[in-house]
């Protein structure tokens, strides 16, 4: 069950336009799972009027903390980036349905594929997968070097058995799209599933590859959200339910969906 709380900012790290903010929020930490998100009131009185959704990038039950990792792209994220530790902010969460990984077991190998800020939910997921002793291969791509700020934390915390980086300008890791790298990947027979979050075009390309490889995959989708908790019906997307596509609320039945349920283009 999700909650509406006032949380105190405990810590804040930043790299250019990217921010990692930790909140003291034991009520949410107790319930959180990777792939879920929170709705954040970035400005007490607005503008913007509405909350903004951010995936959980971490949650620690013992510490009673949760964290988000976000990129500054517009008004809301700009305001959010200005808060300092000690300040309070209103959160609703945890919301939505996260990744399914409970049925995965050693010696399974998982591909986590994140583009830019899309690394956020995967960063949390990787922690959980490593706790279960699974092998985690992380593909982390961006336009340029500065779009991959979590690479050091991923390495330091040993969240990836293999960390593959790619930048479009070649400033770090492979030069090109992360999907180019992925395409050249020789899939291990132990590969069990992929977890994906990133820009729409990237996710679409990954979905194609997974289909080709016949590998199960889960995608964390985005949509502009009016409420985040299922009352406005504003965040819908075409998702397969039974035999047909329906307009399904991302915030309620997602944001994580299986590859084969997602309608990737008008033609499908």
């Amino acid at each position: 069950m999700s909650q509406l709380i006032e949380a105190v900012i405990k810590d804040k790290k930043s790299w250019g336009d990217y921010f990692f903010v930790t909140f003291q929020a034991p009520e949410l930490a107790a319930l959180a799972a990777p792939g879920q998100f929170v709705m954040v009131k970035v400005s007490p009185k607005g503008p913007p009027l509405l909350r903004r959704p951010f995936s959980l990038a971490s949650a620690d039950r013992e510490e009673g903390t949760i964290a988000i990792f976000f990129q500054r792209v517009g008004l809301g994220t700009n305001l959010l980036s200005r808060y300092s530790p000690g300040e309070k902010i209103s959160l609703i969460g945890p919301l939505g349905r996260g990744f399914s990984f409970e049925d995965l077991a050693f010696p399974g190998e998982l591909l986590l594929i994140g583009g830019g800020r899309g690394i956020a939910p995967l960063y949390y997921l990787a922690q959980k997968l490593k706790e279960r002793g699974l092998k985690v291969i992380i593909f982390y791509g961006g336009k340029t070097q500065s779009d991959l700020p979590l690479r050091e934390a991923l390495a330091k915390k040993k969240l990836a058995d293999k960390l593959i980086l790619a930048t479009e300008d070649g400033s770090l890791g492979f030069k090109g799209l992360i999907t180019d790298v992925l395409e050249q990947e020789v899939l291990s027979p132990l590969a069990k599933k992929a977890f994906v979050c990133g820009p729409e075009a990237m996710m679409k390309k990954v979905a194609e590859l997974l289909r080709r490889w016949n590998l199960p995959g889960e995608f964390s989708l985005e949509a502009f959200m009016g409420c985040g908790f299922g009352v406005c019906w504003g965040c819908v997307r075409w998702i397969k339910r039974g035999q047909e596509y329906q307009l399904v609320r991302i915030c309620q039945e997602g944001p994580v969906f299986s590859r084969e349920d997602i309608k990737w283009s008008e033609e499908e």
Partner: protein
Amino acid sequence: MVDLSVDLGFIRLSNPIFTASGTCGYGLEMIPFLELKKLGGVVVKGLYFEPRQGNPPPRLVETTAGLLNAIGLPGIGVEAFAREVLPQLHQQQATVIVNVCGNTDDEYERVVRYLDDHPGIAFYELNISCPNVKEGGQCPALDARATFRIVSRVKKATQRPIMTKLSPNVTDITIIARAAEEAGSDALSLVNTFLGLAVDVETGQPKLANVWGGLSGPAIKPLALRMVYQVVQTVKVPVVGIGGIVTGYDALEFLAVGAKAVEVGTANFVNPRVTLQIIDELQNFCQKKQLSRIEDYIGSFRPRREKQKT
């Protein structure tokens, strides 16, 4: 303790604060945040007879202090509603108001006839004012005759009281209000959303897949308040005010001009407990003003127009 209950004539409600249709889902989605029985009423999402998908996405655009929506009334239809939702709302002891929709006069009638057979509904809100279904915001509430026709027909078809929800996209809302009253509407609620547009200047495309959308939120409050006041001055049936309400102060403005109750819409998205806060603020206001009943405040607006100097 202040008595916040209000009398709509056909029903007395514990307080004048409702959640507005389309902004609290079927009510059940709000349960993590509030006890539904604490609300004066819960107006559930617009219901057609059949299930519907609604409009394609994107369905929402944020504007300055407003929200433009073109949801297009997706829904589960009356059957699933009566079977799956109503019993749960009943268990929560919610005062349920069903927002009734139809593509045709006939469909409105079928919806109420079907629902009349099911207990647990306090009354109906007749949604003849959604701007997001027909091209260019067309809806019956833009026309007095269409309003009269649908309201009369629904009135005859149901045992329950009906409240007709009016559109603000008209020159003179009192004409439509009077038509609804004459057709037998037991109450009126207003306003639904204002027809608006937003353009993505980079692509030259509309920001909403449906092109048009309905504007709600704090931006529209002064316009909604004006219309509620005009309608209160015109009709005898109770009026429920809607539009941009976020605080107890906002609710009081509507009550002052004579609304017997108010519905809170977009504000629920920002703060799902906002309705309970508003109820608290009404309590405190009455205490401060030494009013023992909120009904003593309703209609207290005294518009003294200063003599104009030209």
